[in-house]
């Protein structure tokens, strides 16, 4: 009885979601099918190649310098995530635990900095990096990404931290723990889900970022995936669409897997008191 109701609900749910799911999967299908077409069939909008060319992925890998770009993307995304989390945790902790002069100012400043997108600031940012002689330096891009993630990270963490009772740390203090010990042993373990979620957001933003990378990275050896793929279609005299699609497809796989794996934490982390 219960099973049949569940079954009915499942069918209805999938039916309602189906238009959206088709719309989501469509570009992936386009990517995949174009990627395995022989070069001579790419321009014909057929839905299946006469003979799938799996070798396209290998030729693409070599022709597009894919490995280096993949490594650069991972490097930038991981480091900038770690960095923004490391500076955001103490800031969020301070905002959620203490009253102090200037707190309102800091919060407003963070909200405003959230509104400044890289494209609006790109001319000024570029001058900054030039002044520091950090152009074409992946580490500089790490700093910029980390910074643009701070506002969001602090806000996420702060609203979550506020739901962790202060009593827990105070109890630890009573028992003679130093503030650092209280933080490490009591607070941080409780905060872990929120930190995970925030880290995922930061990682995605860095992984997908386009404008900063486009302006600040000049050398193909330092390109990240989005600009590497973009450079394959931007203003060349011919576009090898099967390579472009193969590259886009392969670039999508790692993060899609990470997503499938972490997606439940994402919702749980948000659920546990965020956005208050």
């Amino acid at each position, binding site marked *: 009885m219960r099973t049949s109701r569940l079954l009915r609900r499942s069918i209805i749910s999938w039916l309602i979601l189906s238009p959206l799911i088709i719309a989501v999967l469509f570009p992936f299908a386009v990517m995949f099918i174009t990627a395995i077409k022989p070069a001579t069939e790419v321009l014909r909008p057929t839905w299946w190649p006469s003979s799938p060319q799996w070798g396209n992925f290998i030729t693409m890998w070599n022709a597009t310098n894919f490995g280096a770009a993949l490594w650069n993307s991972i490097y930038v995304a991981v480091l900038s995530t770690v960095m923004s989390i490391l500076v955001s945790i103490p800031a969020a902790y301070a905002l959620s635990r203490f009253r102090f002069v200037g707190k309102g100012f800091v919060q407003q400043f963070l909200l405003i900095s959230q509104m400044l997108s890289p494209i609006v600031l790109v001319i000024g940012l570029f001058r900054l990096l*030039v*002044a520091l002689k950090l152009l074409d330096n992946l580490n500089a891009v790490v700093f910029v990404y980390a910074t643009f993630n701070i506002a969001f990270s602090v806000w996420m963490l702060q609203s979550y931290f506020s739901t962790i009772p202060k009593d827990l740390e105070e109890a630890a203090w009573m028992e003679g723990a130093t503030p650092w010990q209280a933080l490490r042993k009591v607070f941080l373990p409780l905060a872990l889900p929120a930190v995970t979620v925030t880290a995922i957001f930061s990682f995605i933003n860095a992984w997908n970022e386009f404008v900063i990378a486009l302006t600040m990275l000049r050398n193909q050896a330092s390109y990240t995936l989005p600009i590497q793929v973009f450079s394959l279609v931007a203003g*060349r005299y011919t576009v090898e669409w099967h390579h472009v699609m193969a590259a886009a497809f392969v670039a999508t796989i790692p993060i899609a897997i990470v997503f499938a794996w972490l997606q439940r934490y994402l919702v749980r982390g948000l659920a546990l008191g965020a956005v208050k």
Partner: protein
Amino acid sequence: MSLHWLKVAAATGVAAVALASAAYAQTVRVTVAEYSSKTGPYFEKAATEFEAANPGTDVQIEVVPWDVLQQKLTTDISGGANADLAIIGTRWLIDYVSQGIAAPLDDYITDDFRGRFIDTFLSPSVMDGKTYGLPIAASARAMYYNKALFEQAGITAPPATWDELKAAAEKIKALGGDNYGFGLQGKEIETDVYFYYALWSQGGNLIEEDGTSGLDTEAAYKAAQIYKDLIDQGLTEPGVTSLNREDVQNLFKQGRIGMMITAPFLSNQIKEEAPDLQYGVAAIPAGPNGDRGTYGVTDSIIMFENSQNKDTAWKFMDYLFTTEKRAEFDENEGFLPVNAQEAAMPLFADNADLKAFTDLLPSARFAPVIAGWEEMAAATSNALQRIYLGEGEIQASLDQAAAEINGIIEANQ
């Protein structure tokens, strides 16, 4: 806390993690436009060869997609972080010269060196009697036609005039199927250029002798009318405003387009991607008075005035313009030879496709040397798109574009 302090703190912080790239005494950075997937490897190879022949030098190649080249150069220069050498569209050169950014090369150019070039291609880079760039890439435009479609439709020779072109397009349309007579580009870079072919054939000019735009003239109206008629009568591909140059070329490679006007590099692409395609290359159709014009384009490699290693940079330029290096580059990319010796090589001299292009060179016209050219091209393209879409009357749209262009000319004086 002073800004300076912050700067130092951040600089040291970043420097601590930065992968230190030891600066060679003789480092030459070169910003290179990416024409195809072969461009990057070609320049990397040239750099390696050059470094081997000149110990102690380090040539760094920065490959930039063409679409963002202008943006990168602009930001680079504004931040004082430009390379030593860069490829630019020659049509941008006047801005670089008037702002003192490009260095004159005359001190380096010997008569012997100058003698290497075909003059048509070197002259656009000469301003006020000084040479500011060398033509790294040169091309002109001619008409490609699909021989198989022509045969099926019973067309014996490529059309010599626009009237003949229209007749040919009608015959191809009559064949049925999803073939289109004339491929018309209506989007992105060179949308305006595609219109100039018709404009020039009607005796029109981009800029009149009095220094104003030539778009508000009878010739321009007539030229636009030719294209508009082709569109309205279904003789072009549908949705012209959604097809850029590469899209139209793709249709041609598929054998679905009877005629299109484009650059010599299409031959290279056909050789690789559609080797079975039967095609020919012919002159761009002429107007009623026999006027015709093709678009000549060069990209120049320039040296920056603020370069610290001008001598080494020049040496590298010199190396790039040796006959062997030029031949290798032009063969890779499908550009026209700019070097007389190179042009005489069998590889180029015996190439029937290229001959059609070089024959047109006497009627080649280059983008006018005028500040703000990109903005004018955009105004022209916008007017054309309105006309092609039927959203604007021909005369009104072109007059409006002409007024915009005249405003830009005035503002830049």
